[in-house]
């Protein structure tokens, strides 16, 4: 048996932490509360050791979209209300969005999907269903390559799959989705037969080569986080 060597929280604790954080981010009304949450999640990024330059490169598009949200609140909604009210609404909307994305980014950066699947299976999720997440994640690099190949092939043929028009949307659907679906389904039979040939699903339970430990600290943190989120949500 291989135990997950990395120290730190169990993925389920992190998931509870993320959900609680998102609840707080959605409930935060004042810019001060939102800024405090933003500072907390940025501190979390700093603790994980993610270089700021990489963080910025990954999230600059998100920051730009948050700015668009702010400006849209300022100029397009609540017309007639004082500028201060509209600006506060814009700040609230932009920071809410930013906090949720930053929190999710922190979770994804520190939690492999496989660990999450194994943790869920240890918690009691039937392994046949837990395995679906593992299979889906394993397919990602393959489908990414396939979709890029298909898109580039269609663009080389002059098909406007990259054009922002309704025709472009239809082209994406017709010339990209169909090949990708055929590719995906083409893999299904071989993998299913291979799995069944190895007696997948024969037993109601199974042992795991890899385990993700759930420590007492995880339980304490989960309980504390839920309590804090519930209390804060009730107070806001």
């Amino acid at each position: 048996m291989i135990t997950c060597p990395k120290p730190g929280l169990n993925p389920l604790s992190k998931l509870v932490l993320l959900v609680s954080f998102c609840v707080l981010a959605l409930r935060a009304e004042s810019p001060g509360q939102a800024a405090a949450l933003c500072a907390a999640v940025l501190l979390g990024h700093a603790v994980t050791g993610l270089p700021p330059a990489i963080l910025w490169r990954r999230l600059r598009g998100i920051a730009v979209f948050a700015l668009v949200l702010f400006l849209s609140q300022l100029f397009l909604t609540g017309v007639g209300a004082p500028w201060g009210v509209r600006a506060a609404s814009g700040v609230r909307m932009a920071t809410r969005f930013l906090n949720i994305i930053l929190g999710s980014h922190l979770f994804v950066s520190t939690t492999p999907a496989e660990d999450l699947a194994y943790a869920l299976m240890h918690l009691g999720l039937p392994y046949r269903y837990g395995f679906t997440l593992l299979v889906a994640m394993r397919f990602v690099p393959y489908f990414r390559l396939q979709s890029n190949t298909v898109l580039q092939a269609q663009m080389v043929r002059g098909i406007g799959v990259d054009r922002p028009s309704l025709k472009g949307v239809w082209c994406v659907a017709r010339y990209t989705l169909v090949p990708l679906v055929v590719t995906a389904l083409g893999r299904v039979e071989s993998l299913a037969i291979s799995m069944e040939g190895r007696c997948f699903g024969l037993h109601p339970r199974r042992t795991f080569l890899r385990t993700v430990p759930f420590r007492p600290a995880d339980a304490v943190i989960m309980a504390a986080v839920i309590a804090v989120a519930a209390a804060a949500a009730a107070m806001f």
Partner: protein
Amino acid sequence: MASGATVKGRRYYFRTRDLVLISAVSSAGGVLSTYVGYLGNLLNKAFGVPFGAGQWMAGLHVFWFVLVRVAVGRTGAGTLAGVLKGTVEMFTGSTHGLPIVLISTIEGLLVDLALLPFTRPPLAALCIAGGIAAASNVVVFQALYFSGVSWGYLALMILFAFGSGIVFGGYFADGVLGIVEGARILRLKPGAPPSWAAHLGVSGRPGRAEHTGHVGRARRSSKIHLAVTLLMGVALAGGAVYYYTEVFEPFWKGPTCTVEGKVANPYVYRPVDFGDEVVTVTAELKGQVTYRPPADYTGVPLARILERAHPDASATRVRVLASDGYEAEFDLGDIMEDRTLILIREGENLRLIAAGYEGGYWVRMVTRVVVQ
């Protein structure tokens, strides 16, 4: 409804093949969603709106759930695909973070609910399921973020998403199912509805072209294509007209001032909004230093401007403030009875003409009217 698989006496709701199919299709959907989202943003830019136009892509997100639900033929497949697709999207860098899992799950759940009575649903059921599921994302986003956009604009986005869901989640998904079934990649349950593969440019089952039904089906599908195109064109045109006449606020270049304080409806005053309220008064400026002989001034009565803001019953005073800090204070009751106190446009500024008052009550460069 198909029965589940049996392995060594144990009965499973989903066979291994079903689970792999759900995983594979969800993974493909999650991977392509990033690109679909990118195209949605381009559509927003093309239409010049911060969000909303991207809802034309919403159907491409639910297409996968409809496909899986029909391919597996069991209720729950759509929901499981929703959970998986959302999780894949989140882990592969979705710009929505955790909420995408919730949105995806709800979309898959709605597909399951809408197709509950069917093992192999007809085209109409697929279109309805796709439309409802696609429209749900607008509602969930609004519930999460409370963006404050008008209900009309929200309804418009729901309409776009619903139309997209009908086309891509229903009509298109049915065509793709016809293709994969015709190519023998997938074997669906018997009693399948007519395939629309011919319309998609790929023949359906081998040898079908020899049958007389092929030509008729192709003609029928082209009529449906025309009808759907017309429907979407009308919806788009109607949506654009609604947005630019009811929602979109052009950036006002002229002078403005805020009406605020003890009022039920604070707002930004713009002379153009009071085109029908304009009056002309003759007034003479008698200041301690400045004197202007009687002249005609045309503007909007301050009383009318305040009426639109609905002052509180407890309000008694009105302060008119200029951008340089100068201000004049009036009795609210006097203003409401006096229609000769007017705000006029003076170049790029507003000016208060206070006929009957001393020159010190004539305020230039008015930026705020505060009710106290």
